[in-house]
C-alpha cells in the first residue's frame, strides 16, 4: 500500500526523510573530498619536493601528458584497442562459459567426468598460460583475447552451473507434467531462471577479462594501455604509466556501470 499522497505526510515522516537525504549527501561529499584531497596532496608533495615526481609522477604532469596524447590522438588508439579486446574477451567468456554449463547440465556423465578438471583449472592462475598461448597463436591480438577469454570462461561455467542447479526441482517437474521435453525444461525454466546468475558472471568477467588483456598486452602488444604501462616504465615515463592506470580505473568503472544498466533493462524486459 502506497499512502504517501503528498499532502498528509506527518512531520515525523518528513524529518525521517530529511535525515535520510542528509546522510546521503554527507556520504557523497566525503567520497568527493577523499578523491580531491588525494590528488591535491599528491600534487603538492611533488611540487614541494617531498616525493620525487620523476618516479611518482604528479597529477599536473599526467594531465599535460594526457593533453599531448589527445592532440596526437594516440591515447584513443590505446584505449580503443584495450577496450575492444576486453569487451570481446568477457562477452566470449560469458557466452562460451554458459554454453559449456548447458552441456554439463544436459549430460550428467560429462559433468561428473569433468568436475576435477574444472576445479583444478579454476584455481590455476590463467595468466600463467599466457606465454604458452602466445607461442601457439603468435605475437598478435588473438593471443591477448584468448588470454582474456581463458581468465573468465571457467569461473563462468562454475557460477552458471550453480545457478542452473539451484532451480527448484518441482519447477522442472511442472514442465514434465505438461508433457514437456528436456529441451523445453532448458528454455522455459532453467535459462530464464538463471538470467541473474548469468548477469552476475558477466559482472565478474569484466574485471577478470581486464586482467587477461593487460597481462597479454604486457607480453606481446605494440598498442593498448597494457603496452603503454610496460613501455612507459621501461623508458621511465611514469606519467604515461600512472595515466594509463587512471584510465583503466575509469574504463572499469564505466564498463561496470554499463553492465548494471544492461541488467536493469533485461530485468524490466523479463517482467
Amino acid at each position, binding site marked *: 500500500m502506497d499512502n504517501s499522497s503528498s499532502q498528509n505526510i506527518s512531520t515525523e515522516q518528513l524529518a525521517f526523510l530529511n535525515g535520510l537525504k542528509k546522510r546521503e549527501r554527507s556520504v557523497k561529499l566525503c567520497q568527493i573530498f577523499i578523491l580531491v584531497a588525494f590528488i591535491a596532496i599528491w600534487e603538492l608533495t611533488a611540487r614541494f619536493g617531498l616525493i620525487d615526481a620523476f618516479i611518482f609522477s604528479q597529477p599536473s604532469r599526467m594531465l599535460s601528458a594526457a593533453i599531448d596524447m589527445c592532440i596526437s590522438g594516440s591515447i584513443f588508439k590505446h584505449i580503443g584497442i584495450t577496450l575492444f579486446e576486453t569487451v570481446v574477451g568477457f562477452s566470449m567468456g560469458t557466452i562460451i562459459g554458459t554454453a559449456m554449463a548447458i552441456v554439463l547440465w544436459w549430460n550428467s556423465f560429462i559433468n561428473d567426468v569433468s568436475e576435477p578438471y574444472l576445479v583444478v583449472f579454476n584455481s590455476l592462475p590463467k595468466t600463467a598460460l599466457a606465454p604458452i598461448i602466445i607461442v601457439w597463436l603468435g605475437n598478435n591480438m588473438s593471443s591477448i583475447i584468448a588470454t582474456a577469454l581463458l581468465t573468465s570462461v571457467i569461473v563462468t561455467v562454475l557460477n552458471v552451473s550453480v545457478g542452473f542447479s539451484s532451480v527448484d526441482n*518441482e519447477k522442472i517437474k*511442472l514442465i514434465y507434467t*505438461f508433457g514437456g521435453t528436456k529441451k523445453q525444461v532448458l528454455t522455459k525454466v532453467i535459462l530464464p531462471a538463471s538470467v541473474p546468475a548469468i548477469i552476475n558472471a558477466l559482472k565478474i568477467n569484466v574485471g577478470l577479462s581486464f586482467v587477461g588483456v593487460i597481462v597479454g598486452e604486457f607480453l606481446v602488444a605494440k598498442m593498448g594501455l597494457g603496452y603503454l604501462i610496460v613501455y612507459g616504465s621501461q623508458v621511465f615515463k611514469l606519467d604515461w604509466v600512472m595515466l594509463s592506470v587512471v584510465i583503466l580505473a575509469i574504463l572499469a568503472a564505466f564498463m561496470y556501470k554499463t553492465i548494471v544498466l544492461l541488467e536493469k533493462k533485461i530485468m524490466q524486459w523479463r517482467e
Partner: protein
Amino acid sequence: MPPIVELKNISLVYHSKSGETQAIKDVSLSIEEGEFVSIVGPSGCGKSTLLSILAKLLTPTGGKIEIQNGVKIGYMLQKDYLFEWRTILSNACLALEIEKNLTQENKSEVMGLLVKYGLGDFINSKPSQLSGGMRQRAALIRTLALHPDILLLDEPFSALDYQTRLLVSDEISTIIRKEKKTAILVTHDISEAVATSDRVFVLSSRPATIKSVYTIELNIPERTPIKSREAKEFNYYFNKIWKDLDVNG
C-alpha cells in the same frame, strides 16, 4: 461404463545407494468418470508417488495402469510454481506453449477462464502481486487450458494458511465440478478429503497399500466443501478415517 482409470496391483521399488525401498505395494483402485476421489495417508507413505505413476512420470515396477483411450491427464503440484518472469496470462498459457498448441483461439479461451474466475484484472500482473488463493486459481487455469479429463491434485493447498486453505479448496473443487472433471486429490488432511470427495482411499504407511475405502454420503443439499463440514455425517467419516490412520502409526 468402464472406469476412466484403473490401477491393477501397482507396486514400486526405489533403488538408491543405501538400499532398495518398497514405496508402493499391490495397490488396485478404479475411478469412474466425473468422480472426485481423495487419497489420504500418513506423511511420506508414497501418496505423491502414486500420482506420479498415474501421470506417467514414473513407471511402476509391477502392475498395470489402464486409462481410457484419449483421456488426458492434468497435474497440479503442491505449490503454484508460477514463473515470476512471466505475466499471469503468459503463465496460464505455459502448458499450451509446451504442447506447441498456443493458437489465438486457445489463448482467448484461457483469457476467458481467467476472467470467469476473477483474475481478469490481473492478466498482465506478475505472480507476486497476487494473493495465495489467486495464484492457486491461476495455476489451475494453466492446467485446465490443456482440457484434461482427469485432474491430479498433489496437496495443492498445503502451502496456504488455514483460512485461505478452506476458501481455496472450496473454490478449486467448485471449479473442478463446474468444468465436469474427474479429480484425484492427494492429501494428509482428513477433513479436506471428506469435505471435497465422493470417495476416500486410505493408505497405510510405507510401503503403501490400500487400507480402506469410504464412499462419502452427506445428507445436505448443494454440496460444497465448506458446507460439507456442517453435515451430521462429517464427523462419522472423520473419526473412521482417523482411526484407520492411527492404527498404522
